[in-house]
């Protein structure tokens, strides 16, 4: 839609499909929100309401769920969210310096977004990538270990590539871990979608 706060027909259809996948219709809320954020970049209230409406729950319930998760953004974020890990390994490995460099180069601290809307800097408690400390998560991609040169390279790459995703060199060793795109199951005809009294835990995912 023109205001950029509403979901496309494709996303709506996908969420609609998800509601039939789980034994309890409500279970589609979380993946639904994830799809919405994937499309819009963050979760405006309008989008949350829309997901709630499709899934058939009260908008408040949807909002409550979204507020629990750190990775659902309820305010606009930059095109690239650079999340610096502040776990123990990264802290010792110099995550403070990484934040300092980011402040120097982008002029923003954790929780802030650059004026051009390109970058948001935030922190994480632990990204479970201690082998690459100090590491960071750029959107869904791990980067690290970071030093000043690699950070500059990363920023240059992010600025120059219109649709950056896992660029070699900065990712470091190996093929690189990245959070996979959500893979959602297809409906299982054995599940009744109307009976909410007897959910079958675990059966939803095949």
């Amino acid at each position, binding site marked *: 839609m023109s205001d950029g706060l509403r979901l496309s027909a494709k996303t709506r259809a996908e969420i609609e499909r998800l509601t039939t996948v789980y034994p309890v219709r409500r279970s589609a809320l979380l993946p639904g929100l994830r799809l919405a954020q994937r499309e819009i970049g963050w979760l405006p209230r309008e989008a*949350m309401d829309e997901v709630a409406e499709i899934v058939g729950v009260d908008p*408040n319930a949807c909002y*409550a769920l979204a507020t*629990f998760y750190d990775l659902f953004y309820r305010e606009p974020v930059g095109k690239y969210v650079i999340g610096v890990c502040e776990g123990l390994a990264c802290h010792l490995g110099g995550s403070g310096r990484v934040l300092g460099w980011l402040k120097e180069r982008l002029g923003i601290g954790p929780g802030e977004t650059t004026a051009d809307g390109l970058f948001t800097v935030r922190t994480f408690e632990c990204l479970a990538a201690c082998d690459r400390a100090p590491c960071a998560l750029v959107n869904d991609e791990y980067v690290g270990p970071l030093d000043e040169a690699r950070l500059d390279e990363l920023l240059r790459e992010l600025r120059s590539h219109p649709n950056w995703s896992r660029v070699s060199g900065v990712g470091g060793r190996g093929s690189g871990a990245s959070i996979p795109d959500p893979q959602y199951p297809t409906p299982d005809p054995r599940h009744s979608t109307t009976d909410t009294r007897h959910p079958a835990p675990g059966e939803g995912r095949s």
Partner: protein
Amino acid sequence: MDNLATVTIDGRVVKVPRGMNLVEAARLAGVEIPVFCYHSKLKPVGACRMCYVAIEKVPGVVTACTTTVTDGMVVNTKDPRVVKAQQGVLEFLLANHPLDCPVCDRGGECPLQNNTFGYGGPVSRYVEPKRHFAKPIPLSRRILLDRERCILCYRCVRFQKEIAGDETLTVINRGARVEIATLPGREFDSPFSGNTIELCPVGALTSALYRFKARPWDIRSSPSLCDQCSVGCNVRVDTRNRQIVRLLSRENAAVDDGWLCDRGRFGYEFANHPDRLTQPQVREGTRLRAAEWEEALYQAAQGLRQVVSQRGPGTVGVLVSPRLANEDLYLAQRLARAVIGTSNLDYRLTPHPTVSPLRPDAASGSIVGLEKARTILILGADPLNHQPVLDLRLKKAASLGARLIVVDEKQTDLAAFARLWLRPRSGSLDTLARGLVHLILANGQVNQEFVDRRTEGIDALRARVADDTPERVAASTGVPAPLLEQAATLLATNGPASIVYDRDLGASDDGAAAVLAATDLALLTGNIGRDGAGLYPLVRAANEQGALDLGLMPRRPSPPTPSPTGGEGGHAGCPAGGMTGAEMLDALRAGQLKALYLLGVDPLRELPDDRALRDGLTGLTTLIVQDILPGPAQELATVVLPGAAFHEREGTLTNLERRVQRLWPALKPPGKARPDWQIIHDLARALGTSFDYAQASDVFAEIASVVPTYRGLTYGKVGLKGVQWPLDVASGQEAGSLYEDPGDTRLAFTPVAPSTARIV
């Protein structure tokens, strides 16, 4: 053996039902276990950890609310480990709960205060600054949230979800910064939101209306009833400085289950209104002037006498409000029929609906009986708007396993809780209802035993619905035939089944026929006369049922005039015929009425733009207006008489399940205002009768002596919880269900073709 478990709690041995949780079991044993999050009507969650107990052979301490009793369990609520754990819980709660009790509206009646006093340590070791939020943020116009005070028991959220059935309140930012909230920009817009104020164990959710109005020790409390709708929820009226400061629930499990709707809880402001009528007024030329009661009553009596003698009693009308008490209504009809000599008497301004032919004209079952139903057909009724607390009861029934069938074109609140939602096109309700009758007959799902023994006229019914085949019904209502089939099967085979419909449904043509078909459905399936099986025509106004019982309408059986020696004295002098309220308004417009006595009714408030009506009222020789607040009709009145509000008088109201309940005076009426029955009484005396009732209970005693359904009732019997009529005088038992024992009379299927079925 039996279903009881023997538990020892603090040395006391009690037998309690298996499956009961320990908090309830301790209550039965007379042992108090302190709680915050636990509430007997909500599912236990074990969130607050206050209800720790020690159980023999169980390591550590456990929460009582989430532990169910087992046979032979030995529980100690005073174990040193329990005491220490509870002190710890309270110390943690108070680490963040502000100590602003002196300015908190919950102070003085606060579970956190009480539990801290009873179970807390002497001092807190926590001296650091507490968390601070902006002081109360409005969740809605009515309800304020103070997040500092919240102890996260989730009672409010659970109430909304489990009882009210919505999620208008929610928990956000779960984790260290957890809060109770609504979506940003959205109000806490539940019609039952006020209950969360009473549920909140601290002063986190408070009433905007009650804010800083009083402290618990400033208040005088009195039992009373909510007069906003026909459910008749029991309330506690808290007054200070001759004003109502708040209404609280006074739990009556049979009526309200401890809940109030926001309309009832916050709708008392009319009673505090600064414009309340406090002084009788009489017309002097073009304006009204204050007068004493003697003068006003004399003028009113003279005006009535003059019209009766010059134009005859047929030109006098009496309109009463169905919110007035039984005592007022009874005396009003006696005044009209026996003193003035007119039957132009009604409690409603709109035409009377067609009603079920079963007599008496009342709900056959009880509100609490609905919980026993397995199937409930809700036919063109929207309790959320007209009887909100009944809506909660229906949701409770649904959560207890009843299958709801909602028949309504609109998506009512209950549709979301229904097993089946049938959406007949507008105006086709009758076809749908007859279609269900047809299906039950055609599928052989008739309760033959009941039909043979208790009813008559099934053959005529069979003939009448022969054409209403599912195909035709589906075509004309738009409801798919399989849905109809399912509904009919549920009704016929998943009993006991109750049928709930709006009594005013009968005012429309299709609704009238649907109401009659609903009776047929109940009789066909034998669903009448026992718990869970009943026919519930829902009246709307607080004492509409009382008005029906006492015959406050023309062309209906009216209570006989008592003879001077007591007992019934027959209907001597009661004129036949008479005009209904709607007909009276027409007569007014045509200038045919000469005198009108309005008791709590103002036709101009209902129909403000009706010029002809205004002219008719202007043309009256005598217009007596008795009310508690100024209204447009008073500008045209010859005499204005100030009445008393529900909390300023004695009296009884009859609710939609035939429960007669009492009103108590919490305050005196303002100024010279008087209870309505007294005014009617004095007016009748001014007209030369020998009415002699010293108090409201005298009037009620007469009602009980002349109205058969009220026989045996007294104020004492009605008491705090009310009594459902008819009372079995011999056994003193109230009747939960009508038609339990038919005797020789048989219940008739719709006796006439629907088009001619209008009763009034």
